[in-house]
């Protein structure tokens, strides 16, 4: 392959002189030492949070550690004098640093909601020897076996624990995502520096450090998703056999994405449609044939064919799974204008320090300034230097701004957050283009202004984006706090799950949404998903026996066990509810008398008990019978 095949200009890397202090501060020993010390400091912040220290203290310590590690690497990436290979190593170090906080959060076992689901799925695949195992926590996981297949394969080949094997897969995917952006941006903007800067910006997206590094299917799929775009971009800039192999590679990666995660596939199709359409429109508008048109349509066609085949043959349930999120969020967003009942409050009261919340609000502003700058440059005719697909990907990045609005809608908040891992590809291209571009300035500024401004922007994006991602209990370990997915986990619930499964097998259970995570993950139990049509919460949230219809549903469906954590009667759930949106005591503790009541009815026997947990065996046909007095 030649440079001409890749349509790359002669390497425009311009080595610049590095001053002695910069040379020392940004040398490899210094970068690695800073990363190591930063890691230890982040670990110390977790120690503080686990011990229940003041949030201001552990947030500050966390950011000292992160900034110490990330800022020098960012500077090394951005320096014009850095060699291409060094940029690659710097991106690798950035990948390690941005993976580290989530790894340290729970290094030995699942802690996030989705992690429990995927960990259980992998255990069940290993236990049965077959993919597509029913998943009680996230039913749709069953139809996307990419994560469980890779985890089980790594676990069997290495002998590591299932959790460590999963973390290894995620680490590889995280690295692949960053390098995918590197290759993508290098193809579009033609320099390794632009590629590395794009990887740096992408590594700061709100999902990169906690959400997409959790053990779940999106993190793995995103790592593959980026490569679809990278290969498609390379193909559209190549000729002959190279173009064909790159196109095939893009479609193969798309197929890998399809079998791994539904939402990533959906975003991939959206991006490909946008790029293909814009490339076509511009080619017709300018009446200049663009060979990229055919490439992007081919990759889109291949992706849609793979997704359609998967949906029609394996994962038909996906459509009904995803549609409520989109329909619901649009309705809720439009309702916000007329009612305040369903609205969310951005940066709602939490333990997150004010300064981090301020930076969270500032991060979109920084991005908006970048985008405004780009628009100004394009208005002056720079768009003629950029190819259609580059402009299309940049345009997709602008989706980030309207998506922020969806944070206000309960159903849309999750989708909005998840869109950022994809729209940030475009934003990374925009940022890299602006930073790589050398424009003669009319104003003479001191030499230090640009590095200082860029370092500040980097810090704001890093801190603000992480602050706008997951909430405090997800980010920081802490003392036991009832009503969080993460910090409500207890050894008691874990051992109850194990003992119950050992004693009676993988039975069907009614319990609250937090205990459910432990019961499913550690016991493989099948936990009820309460809804208005199946109000299983009535067992614990009403002072009366369950209605005959609920009792009938419980009996015929085989929900024979109830597990009660009495801490739901001692404090209100941090997340507000114990049983989802239909909870009868939203924001309040469940009355303890309602929980104790199960000890006084003939249709429930308490068969297991710990300090906080009680397990009942139901005998629902006894409803309506009365207990006799003493002997």
């Amino acid at each position, binding site marked *: 392959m030649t440079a001409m095949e890749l349509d790359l200009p002669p390497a425009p890397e311009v080595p610049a002189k590095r001053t002695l202090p910069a040379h020392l501060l940004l040398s490899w020993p210094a970068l690695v030492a800073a990363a190591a010390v930063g890691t230890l400091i982040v*670990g110390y912040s977790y120690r503080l949070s686990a011990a229940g220290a003041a949030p201001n203290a552990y947030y500050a310590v966390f950011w000292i550690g992160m900034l110490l590690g990330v800022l020098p690497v960012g500077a090394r990436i951005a320096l014009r004098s850095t060699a291409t290979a060094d940029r690659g190593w710097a991106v690798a170090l950035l990948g390690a640093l941005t993976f580290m906080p989530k790894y340290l959060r729970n290094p030995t076992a699942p802690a996030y909601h989705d992690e429990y689901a995927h960990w259980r799925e992998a255990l069940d695949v290993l236990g049965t020897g077959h993919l597509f195992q029913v998943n009680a926590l996230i039913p749709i996981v069953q139809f996307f076996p990419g994560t469980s297949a890779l985890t089980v394969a790594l676990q069997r080949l290495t002998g590591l624990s299932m959790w460590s094997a999963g973390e290894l897969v995620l680490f590889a995917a995280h690295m692949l995502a960053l390098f995918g952006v590197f290759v993508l941006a290098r193809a579009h903007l033609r320099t390794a520096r632009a*590629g590395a800067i794009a990887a740096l910006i992408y590594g700061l997206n709100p999902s990169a450090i906690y959400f997409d590094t959790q053990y779940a299917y999106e993190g793995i799929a995103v790592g593959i998703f980026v490569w679809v775009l990278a290969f498609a971009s390379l193909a559209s800039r190549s000729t002959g056999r190279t173009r064909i192999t790159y196109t095939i590679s893009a479609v193969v990666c798309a197929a890998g994405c399809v079998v791994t995660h539904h939402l990533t596939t959906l975003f991939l199709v959206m991006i490909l449609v946008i790029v293909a359409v814009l490339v076509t429109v511009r080619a017709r508008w300018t009446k200049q044939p663009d060979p990229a048109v055919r490439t992007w349509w081919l990759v889109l066609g291949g992706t849609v064919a793979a997704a359609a085949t998967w949906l029609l043959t394996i994962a038909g349930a996906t459509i009904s799974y995803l549609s409520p999120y989109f329909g619901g969020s649009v309705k809720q967003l439009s309702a916000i204008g007329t009612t305040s009942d369903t609205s969310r409050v951005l940066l709602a009261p939490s333990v997150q320090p004010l300064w981090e919340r301020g930076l969270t609000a500032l991060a979109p502003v920084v991005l908006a300034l970048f985008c405004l700058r780009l628009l100004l440059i394009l208005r002056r005719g720079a768009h003629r230097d950029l190819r259609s697909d580059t402009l299309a990907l940049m345009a997709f990045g602008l989706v980030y701004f309207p998506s922020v609005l969806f944070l206000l809608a309960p159903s849309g908040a999750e989708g909005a957050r998840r869109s950022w891992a994809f729209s940030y590809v475009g934003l990374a291209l925009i940022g890299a283009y602006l930073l790589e571009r050398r424009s003669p300035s009319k104003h003479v500024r001191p030499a230090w202004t640009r590095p200082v401004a860029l370092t500040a922007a980097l810090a704001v994006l890093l801190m603000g984006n992480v602050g706008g991602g997951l909430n405090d209990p997800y980010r920081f370990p802490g003392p036991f706090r009832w009503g969080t997915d993460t910090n409500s986990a207890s050894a008691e619930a874990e051992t109850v799950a194990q003992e119950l499964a050992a004693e009676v097998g993988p039975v069907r259970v009614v319990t609250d949404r937090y205990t459910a995570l432990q019961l499913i993950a550690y016991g493989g139990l099948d936990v009820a998903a309460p809804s208005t049509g199946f109000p299983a919460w009535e067992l614990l949230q009403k002072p009366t026996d369950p209605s005959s219809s609920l009792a009938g549903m419980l009996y015929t469906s085989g929900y024979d066990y109830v597990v009660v954590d009495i801490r739901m009667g001692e404090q209100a759930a941090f997340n507000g509810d114990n049983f989802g949106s239909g909870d009868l005591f939203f924001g309040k503790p469940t009355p303890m008398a309602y929980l104790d009541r199960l000890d006084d009815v003939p249709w429930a026997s308490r068969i297991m008990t*710990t300090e906080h947990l009680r397990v009942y065996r139901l005998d629902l046909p006894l409803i309506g019978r009365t207990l006799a007095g003493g002997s």
Partner: protein
Amino acid sequence: MSTVTDRRPWTLGPTGVTVVLAALVIVAAGVALLPVPVALRSLFVLPVLVLVAGHSVTRLVLGGHPADGILRAVAPLLFGVLSLLVSVLLLAALGLSIDTASIALGADAVTLLLLLAARGPTLLPHVEPEQSGYERVAWVGRATLRRAAGVVIAALVLAAAVAGAVALRPVPVESYTQLALTEPTVLAGRPLAARPGGPVTIRWTLRSYGFALTDPRPDEQVTIGGVPVGQLFPAALPPVPDTGNGPRSDAVSRQDGSVGFTAPNNAGLYDVRITVTSADDPTGQPSLLVVTMEVQ
């Protein structure tokens, strides 16, 4: 290893490279099936199977000498991961069980096929591999060694920092007991059956977490319909160490016991409350079980 264009001593020709890679893949599958330490499997089996498959696909896609060094370096990881995924999906599609042997052999077969597709021409006698873009590979030079050592040292420093950061976290130990009924009738969802005035025995198991049980005779109390039972026949075996049921279980001790009493003389449904209090329990609270008993 570094790629060179000129012929030097200690270099391996394209055919030799193919043979060595194939041999490594076969040995890796063999090692995966043997009870060898995790470190060896992680540092040998996994890299060989993933990276050889990835290298082969990279070669098929990019040809012999891709211009982009970063792409050349990273693509083997991407394609290796995808090859492993394809191996497992193929096993599932063929209806084969996904276990150590099938994964090792499946990944091995896929990797060998890819290797053959990518480097097959180097094995043909009438093809001049070096003129077809297949490289000779030189033994590691001093500069390469120095670079590799730097990477290894950096990785070790970072790994040590991660280990240190993990160690900084306090490991909370929850100390509690778990009392479980072991009556098959009740576990099956039926009330405990008794005859009026007949003998009743309820068996239980007490497990301790975070501390060891030493009390040979925990206190047992029973109420029937809210009334304490006067004459009880408590029994308990001495506590024994317990390994627990799960890999992360912290169960320390286990104690099996039972309590016997006489059923009421009148027929009806009764709630029977059994409390077991071990002197070792740090909470100092009795553990309660509640059973519905039908006297008829």
